[in-house]
């Protein structure tokens, strides 16, 4: 449309993990929702150096684009992936969240076009916590117990 201001791009997402967890989580989310634009995944291979990981993370951030906020979801706080992301903070305005699970990726994809990055991060944190469930306790009384032979 002529003269209409370009709509701001929704936040991007970078998943970072030890091994293939990040890449697989993104694939799993796409299995549930379909394409997720502006989402990338980077894994630290067993024999990978932190320098290589930092380079791969920076390249992925560049692919997602400089013109939008980016949420970096890492697997473990205190792990190499989180550390590499934290070291980028002075250079880039990233939001970093640890504890990557599939519910968080899905929540991100469904929510990102509404509201600002801060409320999005809050929703992602909440979804990640809510997804951790003692299933036995939840289904107790609703599923027959195993029959003892």
């Amino acid at each position, binding site marked *: 449309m002529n003269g209409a201001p370009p709509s701001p791009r929704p936040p991007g997402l970078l998943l970072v993990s030890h091994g293939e967890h990040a890449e697989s989580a993104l694939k799993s989310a*796409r*299995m*549930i*929702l*379909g*394409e*997720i634009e502006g989402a990338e995944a980077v894994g630290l291979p067993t024999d990978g150096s932190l320098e290589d990981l930092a380079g791969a993370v920076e390249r992925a951030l560049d692919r997602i684009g400089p013109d939008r906020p980016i949420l970096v979801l890492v697997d473990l706080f205190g792990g190499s992936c989180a550390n590499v992301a934290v070291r980028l903070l002075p250079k880039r305005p990233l939001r970093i969240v640890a504890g990557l699970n599939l*519910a968080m990726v*899905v929540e991100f*994809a*469904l929510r990102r076009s509404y509201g600002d990055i801060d409320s999005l991060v809050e929703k992602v944190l909440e979804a990640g916590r809510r997804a951790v469930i003692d299933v036995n306790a*939840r*289904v107790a009384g*609703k*599923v*027959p117990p195993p029959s003892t032979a």
Partner: protein
Amino acid sequence: MPVVLARIDDRLVHGQVSVGWSRYLRAQRLLVVSDAAARDPSACALMEMGTPEGLAFECLPVSRAARRYADLDRGPDRTIVLGESPSIYLALAAAGAPVREVNLGGLHPPTGGLRLADGVAASPKEIEDLRALLACGIRIEVRPVPAGPAEDLEEILARLAGPGSAPA
């Protein structure tokens, strides 16, 4: 609000529905139409538990579902209807449910069947039922996930019938 999605999915309530479609469409209610599930309280309970909070859930046998479908279509809730096979929608339409468009989202026939999309294949009987739905004027969109590729079933069937062949 009318029924916002009437879906064929042999897995009924699973991630693509409970997380994907229901959130994407901001659904408020889920109606599962299944004789097998309606007979099995623990199957219903498990599906209900897999349904996100804030989404009303009900499971009905086919014989009682057409009336409910029509009521929900005139009701206040944005409703997703789930049936495990094309024949469910034939029965619903025949019994007067206002089925206008069907989403073909997941079919995994044990014998393999004719592949229509990722995660969607149909046995000869299912193809026959799908054609019968089309013949009733019901549009069928093959679209497993909300942000994934979508294709009209008639176009897929025409393509599979072979290059150059005219649609039936």
